[in-house]
């Protein structure tokens, strides 16, 4: 009950005129970056970041998180109306959303998507309301070994459940760690990995990396294909909106299952993209109408949308209570928290009650604002898609360049941003996951510090990671997740004795070296 009181207090902070205006601005900007291919939630949020430095932390996080909700919704708009996913996490929405819209039911498709998305988000926020402070309380007792174990588990779950090729995930993670280590070492004070470039002493800002990886990288992927904005009608029939939302409870099972998948994938850093694909796949397997999926099935829209938003929302839970972001966007927001002088993690719930509960309350309000605004503005943003890509692309390049420069007024950052753009393009093209890379850049330093402090405590013995039940469980869980892809591969080979045994030996040796 204490939580509810805190939440009510949070509402008094969130529901004020300036904050409601910030929410509306954030949501509209979010829809904008969500709609535009090449700009997504992670770099939308990082573009806004330099502009929030002068704000109160509560106002700043409300602006950024509202932008996140807006981007999640905006991505679905283009998926349904144009068959172009504005966000990676709304790819699964195109499978059934676009066919339904093409068959002359765009309003039904949009309303179903928004309704189930709002439901997913609501479940995510409720989860945060009741669980976050409890997790934070548990985490207050954590020492460095526990922290390292939690970080380890987070990274391992990317490898085990991220869906990308495991070794590619490992490479992406390790590169992120190395980038995080560039600059001054926080423990010893010595300068690391600058490779002779003096300006690198300040380190590589994650904002610069995100702009390049997601902004320029995604733009380069997008420019390869000619855009055919074959729009279906984007007129909204308001009566149909309410009818479609009214029909949602009939699919209660799909809604709840997808929300559960979403929350799970959001808390363990699987991220919204993996959540929506997983939810869609499971729905297709278990639905009675599974074989009609792909032709405009209602559950084919509900499942990915609910999971996407549930994951996006609940990704903030580990960020707030443990200091471990559950998605790339949450990682960027967490970077913001550190810049505003807050220390993400359990102490937030003790020192910064206003901030935490203001944010949680704003998540309830922000999602309502987002649903209303996105329905009202669908025609406007649909018209935006008719602006030719050749006009939008240079504008996005300029936004990224200026954004990278404004982080610390450094020209080197701009050049690095462009370099990250090439890396982002290559990684996207070859299915290297980007989220673990960003995550490692943001929390790599903390993970390293936790490891080194643990080593100091134990005088160099790895035994400290098996010293009590909690740590042991976390570490063993992490190792199990790391080995999961290998186990699945072996199981597949045992079932179907393939001649390619030479390949398995390579796979067997590599993951072992990863567990350090």
């Amino acid at each position, binding site marked *: 009950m204490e939580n509810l009181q805190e939440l009510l207090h949070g509402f008094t902070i969130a529901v004020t005129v300036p904050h409601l205006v910030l929410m509306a601005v954030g949501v509209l900007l979010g829809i904008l970056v969500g709609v535009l291919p090449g700009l997504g939630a992670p770099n939308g949020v990082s573009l806004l970041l330099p502009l929030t430095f002068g704000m109160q932390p509560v106002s700043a996080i409300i602006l950024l998180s509202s932008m996140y909700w807006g981007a999640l919704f905006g991505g679905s708009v283009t998926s349904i109306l144009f068959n172009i996913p504005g966000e990676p996490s709304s790819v699964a929405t195109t499978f059934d959303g676009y066919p339904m819209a093409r068959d002359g039911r765009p309003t039904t498709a949009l309303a179903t998507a928004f309704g189930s998305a709002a439901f997913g988000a609501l479940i995510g926020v409720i989860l945060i309301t009741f669980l976050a402070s409890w997790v934070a309380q548990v985490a207050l007792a954590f020492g460095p070994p526990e922290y390292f174990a939690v970080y380890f588990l987070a990274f391992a779950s990317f490898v085990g459940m991220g869906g990308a090729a495991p070794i590619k995930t490992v490479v992406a993670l390790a590169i992120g760690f190395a980038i995080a280590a560039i600059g001054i070492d926080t423990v010893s004070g010595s300068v690391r990995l600058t490779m002779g470039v003096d300006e690198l002493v300040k380190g590589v800002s994650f904002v610069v990396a995100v702009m390049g990886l997601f902004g320029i990288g995604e733009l380069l992927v997008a420019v390869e294909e000619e855009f055919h904005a074959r729009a279906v009608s984007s007129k909204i029939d308001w009566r149909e909106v309410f009818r479609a939302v009214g029909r949602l409870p009939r699919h209660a099972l799909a809604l709840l299952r997808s929300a559960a998948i979403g929350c799970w994938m959001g808390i363990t850093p699987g991220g919204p993209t993996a959540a929506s694909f997983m939810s869609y796949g499971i729905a297709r397997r278990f639905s009675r109408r599974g074989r009609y999926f792909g032709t405009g099935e209602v559950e084919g829209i509900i499942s990915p949308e609910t999971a996407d938003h549930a994951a996006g929302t609940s990704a903030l839970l580990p960020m707030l209570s443990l200091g471990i972001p559950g998605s790339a966007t949450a990682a960027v927001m967490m970077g913001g928290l550190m810049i505003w002088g807050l220390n993400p993690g359990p102490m937030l719930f003790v020192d910064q009650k206003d901030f935490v509960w203001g944010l949680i309350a704003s998540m309830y309000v922000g999602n309502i604002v987002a649903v209303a605004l996105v329905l009202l503005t669908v025609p406007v943003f649909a018209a935006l898609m008719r602006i030719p890509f050749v006009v939008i692309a240079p504008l996005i390049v*300029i936004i990224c360049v200026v954004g990278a420069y404004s982080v610390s007024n450094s020209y080197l950052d701009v050049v690095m941003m462009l370099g990250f753009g090439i890396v982002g393009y290559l990684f996207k093209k070859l299915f290297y996951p980007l989220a673990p890379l960003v995550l490692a850049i943001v929390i790599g330093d903390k993970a390293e510090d936790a490891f080194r402090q643990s080593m100091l405590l134990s005088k160099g013995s790895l035994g400290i990671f098996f010293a009590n039940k909690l740590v042991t469980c976390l570490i063993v869980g992490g190792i199990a997740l790391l080995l999961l892809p290998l186990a699945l591969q072996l199981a597949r080979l045992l079932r179907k004795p393939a001649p390619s045994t030479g390949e398995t030996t390579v796979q067997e040796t590599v993951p072992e070296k990863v567990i350090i």
Partner: protein
Amino acid sequence: MISRRALELATAILTGSFGVAVVVSSLDNGIGWSSAGVDAGTFPFLTGIIVVLGSLYNLVRGLVPAATLANVPIAITPTELHRLAGLFVPAAIFVAAIPLLGMYLASSLYVLAVLAIPRHQSVPRALAMAAATALALYVVFERMFQVSLPHGALASALGF
């Protein structure tokens, strides 16, 4: 035309050489255990090793015939390459021009060039958009958020 295989190999070599650079560079900070605990270079050293090993694995994976790679042997077709270059080359020139021309001039020229030269827009419209870009940047950054964008060597030589 660039094959999927070539792209995989190039990326693996790129990540691998980054790993090698990290390993070599971290040796300067010392790896292992000293009186102050774990040396500063240890963690980067280990991540570098992981990057190198992972890249080697991806390299081998890329060399193995196409069965393991998705069924698309071609990663980038000539038309796609053309479009890519059409976006990236002007962007790179734009970034390279910033120190000399400054952000405002460089970005307007960039907008003008990419819109008017391939005749996507008429010259007057492209000119208008270029001017609007510079103005918007000035209002948002220099005025509203007090972030000073680089004015460039040319502007300072002229005394701005």
